């Protein structure tokens, strides 16, 4: 018997337990996988009204200039680690990008927000220790790196999310998709962005950990708002066609294979200057051998991560990287990598499930329309 390592808790741990959450270990944290309503109801709550998620396990990092430097120096430094255009990111704007390695593989995916005088980063819980070490090793000569581990992060997602938060911070409705701003509420500085990982309109709110529970209680007083756990977070992001690090993307997949070329702006494509740029530039110019696609298995049986994908002649084409039940789609959905000549929508393939082949169709992502409110 090995002893279980002690799990970390978020500032909202007591509230989760009070709300009847089933807590599970996730990335070293005790996290709510579901509340008594159950994953399907929580999924529908987010699609139809507003779901409230604790994502405080994710890493929040502030990058600012060292002695006499400017924000542009910080942006230039970060561009040495990620393929997105950070230098031209305007204050109050947010961008999705990846930390890449020398092979063009993905070390983690993250959000970068320009706050005018610093950059605010949100990285995955499971990667945050290595991400912070990576930034300390590569950026410490030019950037102050401050880990904001005294802050909680919550996501309020769904078509009624912004209206619910506007009851507390009326001006938040002025944000459009991928914009961010700060507001003071009850003496706390909140950093609010109109973004999320469910495919819905909504907000992510960074709040001092000591004030997080009070803020959640106020939001949960709204009849349109209910708590949602990691189970529904996973089915929501899968329906939205969004990658889960460690599953759909990792060090063996490049942003181009993963269908994330949209996150690499034109200047960076031509100039390079990020880890793995030669590999990624070559793939942009000449194509890739395999691509991430959406898959709709026939019937009702979910096909899960790891299932082999075959063409109709029985030749292996790739592997499912995420799969489950799409509550809004009303059936099984999956994502995986297939040979590029099988990546066109409507291509018929087979997924291996318990020794049998399940017919499946390559499907354009996302599986459900996005609810983002763009400017």
């Amino acid at each position, binding site marked *: 018997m090995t002893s279980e390592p002690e799990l970390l808790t978020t500032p909202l741990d007591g509230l989760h337990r009070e709300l009847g959450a089933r807590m599970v270990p996730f990335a070293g944290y005790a996290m709510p*996988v*579901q509340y008594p309503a*159950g*994953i*399907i109801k929580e999924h529908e709550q987010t699609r139809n009204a507003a779901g409230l998620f604790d994502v405080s396990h994710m890493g929040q990092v502030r990058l600012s200039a060292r002695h006499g430097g400017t924000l542009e120096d910080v942006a230039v430094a970060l561009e040495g680690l990620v393929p997105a255009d950070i230098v031209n990111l305007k204050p109050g704007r947010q961008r999705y990008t990846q930390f890449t390695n020398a092979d063009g593989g993905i070390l983690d995916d993250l959000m970068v927000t320009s706050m005018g005088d610093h950059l605010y980063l949100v990285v995955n819980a499971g990667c945050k220790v290595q991400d912070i070490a990576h930034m300390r090793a590569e950026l410490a000569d030019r950037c102050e790196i401050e880990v904001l581990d005294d802050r909680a992060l919550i996501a309020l997602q769904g078509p009624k999310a912004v209206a619910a938060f506007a009851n507390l911070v009326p001006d938040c409705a002025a944000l459009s998709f991928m914009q961010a701003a700060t507001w003071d509420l009850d003496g706390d500085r909140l950093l609010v962005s109109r973004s999320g990982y469910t495919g819905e309109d909504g907000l992510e709110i960074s709040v001092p950990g000591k004030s997080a529970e009070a803020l959640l209680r106020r939001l949960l007083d709204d009849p349109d708002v209910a708590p949602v756990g990691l*189970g529904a977070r996973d*089915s929501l992001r899968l329906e939205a066609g969004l990658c889960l690090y460690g599953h759909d993307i990792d060090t063996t997949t490049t942003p181009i294979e993963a269908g994330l070329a949209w996150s690499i702006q034109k200047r960076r494509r031509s100039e390079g200057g990020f880890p793995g740029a030669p590999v990624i530039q070559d793939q942009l110019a000449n194509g890739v051998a395999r691509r991430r696609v959406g898959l709709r298995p026939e019937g*009702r*049986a*979910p096909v*899960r991560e790891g299932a082999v994908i075959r063409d109709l002649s029985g030749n292996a084409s790739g592997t499912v990287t995420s799969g*489950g*039940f799409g*509550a809004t789609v009303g059936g*099984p959905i999956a994502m995986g990598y297939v040979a590029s000549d099988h990546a066109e929508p409507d291509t018929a393939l087979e997924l291996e499930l*318990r020794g049998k082949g399940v017919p499946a169709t390559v499907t354009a992502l996302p599986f459900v329309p996005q609810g983002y409110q763009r400017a």
Partner: protein
Amino acid sequence: MSDRLYSKDHEWIEMDGDIGTIGVSDHAQEQLGDVVFVELPEIGRAVVQNEEAAVVESVKAASEVYSPVSGEVVEVNETLTDDPAQVNADPHGEGWFIRIRVDDMSQLDGLMDEEAYQEFLAELD
């Protein structure tokens, strides 16, 4: 009190003559969460005690349903194919999985009655 008997794997069996109806316990459905798919065996298949007889998939994961005793499948609950949520809604009733003709009634002796199962659950917590 019902004549339902339980296995340590959280399946139940209820006997009517030599025919046993098998399902998963209320505790099991709660642990599974929302059931979205059930794969049932073919009629006539021989199932073996403590071996897989069916598959149940929740939103999160696939799990095996083990047969508490050996026997031959004589009926399956086809309604679960279209309405797997019955497993959550009525695990001891409409959410049954299969009926088998039990080979060896003495295998039932190793199962728990309601009271013993509730004690077993209390020890798990």
